[in-house]
């Protein structure tokens, strides 16, 4: 397996070096489940799926290291066998995503604001750069402040700085107990309650609202979950139905996601309801709000900015790009970083930022 992985990696290095020499744009592809995500898809496809396999997993270290092409399902199965999991709950869209794609996109599921985001669990990464060099940043340890935190920078970079060939992630033990409750609340009351309960220290690991119902997931030590459940009230949901609901939310499989135009707004967690027509799907205890098919004249970006957040056009045609525009000073820093890591602009051109 090691020899095979080395051979695959050697071939990737060859391909990337050649592309750098000939200034051939490359479109990095794991499982291709997130082709919809990003500004544009351009370049010759560079398949990364073959570079796969778990390199190291020692449950007592709480760290797993795997190659970029490793299917997420394989990683989750390995962790589950030891009662552990990826606490950022990466979403999967349709087929089985690759670890490289999960980290390059940097998306996180319902536990985002409670357990941390994908980037919070990245401990180290290996990067194949434009000139074919393999760099290692971070490591397999919990605390590491040697050098700039490039491995976290790669999380969410959509491959524009190079090929993430290997990632080390912090993993956590699965909570001993979990209980989901549903309450009938307005959106405003739900967001207010999620924040209030969090401030009280209740062991919340999911806070979502949809169509008049607030869903609260409690995770942790059995006594803590029990007493929180009594404090919150509401209707207890059986484990299977709860799992189905959180999975559908995590993987964007609720009916709302069949809409043609979907916006994803990231806001301060306690932001009041927005002045947008239509009801949102709320996640992350209020910090994430999905809107389907808003009125044609709604200026979603302006509304998000006014509320202290940003808006991402998840699906459908956005007026000025998919991602919320960056302030000029940040856009300039992006350009300077890109020029230095990828001087000929071969990696995923235009995917994270138009023209970059």
């Amino acid at each position, binding site marked *: 397996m090691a020899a095979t992985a080395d051979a695959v990696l050697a071939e990737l290095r060859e391909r990337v070096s050649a592309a750098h020499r000939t200034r051939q744009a490359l479109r990095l592809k794991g499982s291709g489940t997130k082709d919809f995500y990003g500004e544009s898809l351009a370049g010759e496809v560079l398949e990364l799926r073959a570079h796969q396999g778990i390199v190291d997993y*020692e*449950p*007592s*270290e*709480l*760290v797993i290291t795997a190659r970029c092409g490793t299917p997420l399902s394989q990683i989750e199965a390995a962790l589950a066998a030891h*009662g552990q999991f990826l606490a950022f709950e990466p979403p999967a869209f349709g087929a089985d995503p690759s670890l490289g794609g999960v980290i390059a996109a*940097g998306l996180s599921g319902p536990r*985002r*604001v409670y357990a*941390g985001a994908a*980037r*919070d669990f990245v401990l180290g990464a290996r*990067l194949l*750069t434009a000139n074919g060099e393999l*760099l*290692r940043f971070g*490591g397999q*340890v*919990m*605390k*590491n*402040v*040697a*050098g*700039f*935190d490039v491995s*976290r*920078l790669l*999380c*969410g*970079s959509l491959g524009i700085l190079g090929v993430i060939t290997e990632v080390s992630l912090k993993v956590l*033990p699965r909570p001993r107990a979990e209980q989901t409750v549903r309450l009938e609340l307005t959106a405003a009351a739900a967001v207010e309650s999620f*924040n209030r309960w969090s*401030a*009280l*220290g209740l062991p919340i690991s999911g806070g979502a609202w949809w169509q008049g119902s607030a869903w609260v997931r409690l995770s*942790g*030590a059995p006594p*803590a979950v029990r*007493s929180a459940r009594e404090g919150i009230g509401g209707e207890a949901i059986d484990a299977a139905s709860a799992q189905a609901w959180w999975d559908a939310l995590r993987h964007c499989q609720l009916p709302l996601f069949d809409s043609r135009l979907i916006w994803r707004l*990231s806001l*301060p*967690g*306690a932001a009041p309801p927005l002045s947008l027509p239509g009801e949102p799907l709320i996640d*992350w205890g209020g*910090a*994430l709000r999905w809107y389907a098919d808003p009125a044609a004249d709604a200026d979603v970006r302006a509304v998000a900015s006014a509320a*202290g957040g*940003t808006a991402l056009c998840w699906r459908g045609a956005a007026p000025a790009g998919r991602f*919320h525009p*960056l302030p000029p*000073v*940040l856009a300039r*820093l992006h350009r*300077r*970083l890109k020029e*230095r*890591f990828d001087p000929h602009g071969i990696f995923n051109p235009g995917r994270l*930022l138009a023209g970059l």
Partner: protein
Amino acid sequence: MAEADIAAALRTFLPEDCVLSREEERRPYECDGLTVFRQLPGVVVLPRTEQQLQQVLLTCSRLKVPVVARGAGTGLSGGSTPHAQGVLLSCARLNRILEIDAHERIARLEPGVPNLRVSEAAAVHGLYYAPDPSSQVACSIGGNVAENSGGVHCLKYGLTVHNVLGVRGYTMEGEPLELGGRAPDGPGLDLLALAIGSEGLLMIVTEVTVRLIPRPPCAQLVMASFADVHSAGTAVAAVIAGGIIPAALEMMDRKATAAVEPFAHAGYDLSAAAILLIEADGTPEEVADQVREIEQVLRSAGASTLRVSGSEAERLRWWSGRKNAFPAAGRLSPDYYCMDGTIPRRHVGEVLQAIERMEARYALHCMNVFHAGDGNLHPVILFDANDHDSWERAERFGAEILELCVQLGGTITGEHGVGVEKLNSMCVQFSPAERAAFAAVKEAFDPAGLLNPGKLIPTLARCAEYGRMRVHHGALPHADLPRF
């Protein structure tokens, strides 16, 4: 440019008392918490407002004068060692708590706010700021951001990078910059992750937004003794493997307990080769459950004695020994040198034994305190700074420990930073291409290279020189480490 001219340029817009140029005024700024590195700064500025700070940067950028930022000066790697011809920019007077939103559970802070003051201010709401470096009474939030500081509760509650939501500040060119914020996962690259732990090389932070969390209603400490360090190490792994994430998991070896006990009177078992301090926090029921589990695991891992704190006073007394470990070193020896390597937990025993062998070789004593839960070692090497040979041996001893950490898959610094202290060790941990990537990041933020120059990223020449020296001395045994 002459220092007097720099001071004059700064005095055109800063009040007299914000610019220190006389030698006796500059002297207190010549070092940070790592006192073996000293350099008198050219000029010291202490702006009172963000606007003044921006003006300082604009002026220094125009005059091409290096700028070194300083928080409370408690850093342990010489990260704020001044530049002889540069400006030392103290953020100490930017020390207001701008906002605490108890409902959203965030605080907005100026960089000079001391770490502990955040938790004190949030206490009325039942909230606190989790990262708790041992210098938390004094160290500032701005410095914590620069160093990505940790503390004893990182395993469960994370480092600074996990608890800071956003920063505002300025580039060296004086341009305002906002990274991250109250809304999670904004567009673009995660530049906030780069800024945190960037040791003052990328930007100057003027506002930090942190996450506050509810103070757990109850905490209890388990103290376990082990007859040898190996079984203590195994016990640590067993706790984690048992699915337990304690609030803190600390180890002290016999030399450390012997050093602190005479004046901390913590009640440590001085016959044990190593003790573990394991804290459970949460509701009383949760804590009772977890303490029971921890006791079980430790017993099967061979703990010789096991005690559980019976009161808050006892819990704090047991902690007091650990928290006073470094001052205790100061009682044993004129000077001490605290290392900060991190290793995969499973190698704890091995590393402690290797350190014991090094003690003999360098003819210096070393006591070990250890954030065992995160594999972060703090070997404390005792030496005498008045004896130059003693310091040289201490420095080489420290470097060898760090090389061993790298060799075992760890890192040269877990929470103290590189600063000037670990520049040589950076040559060991990173390849030339990796160091070039760090330089590229630096250039992107600070093309003129004026912010904290000479820190964090060693030059090629320095690494070449260090490589030659190591071969020449032949004192370092890790011949199998990759060379450059």
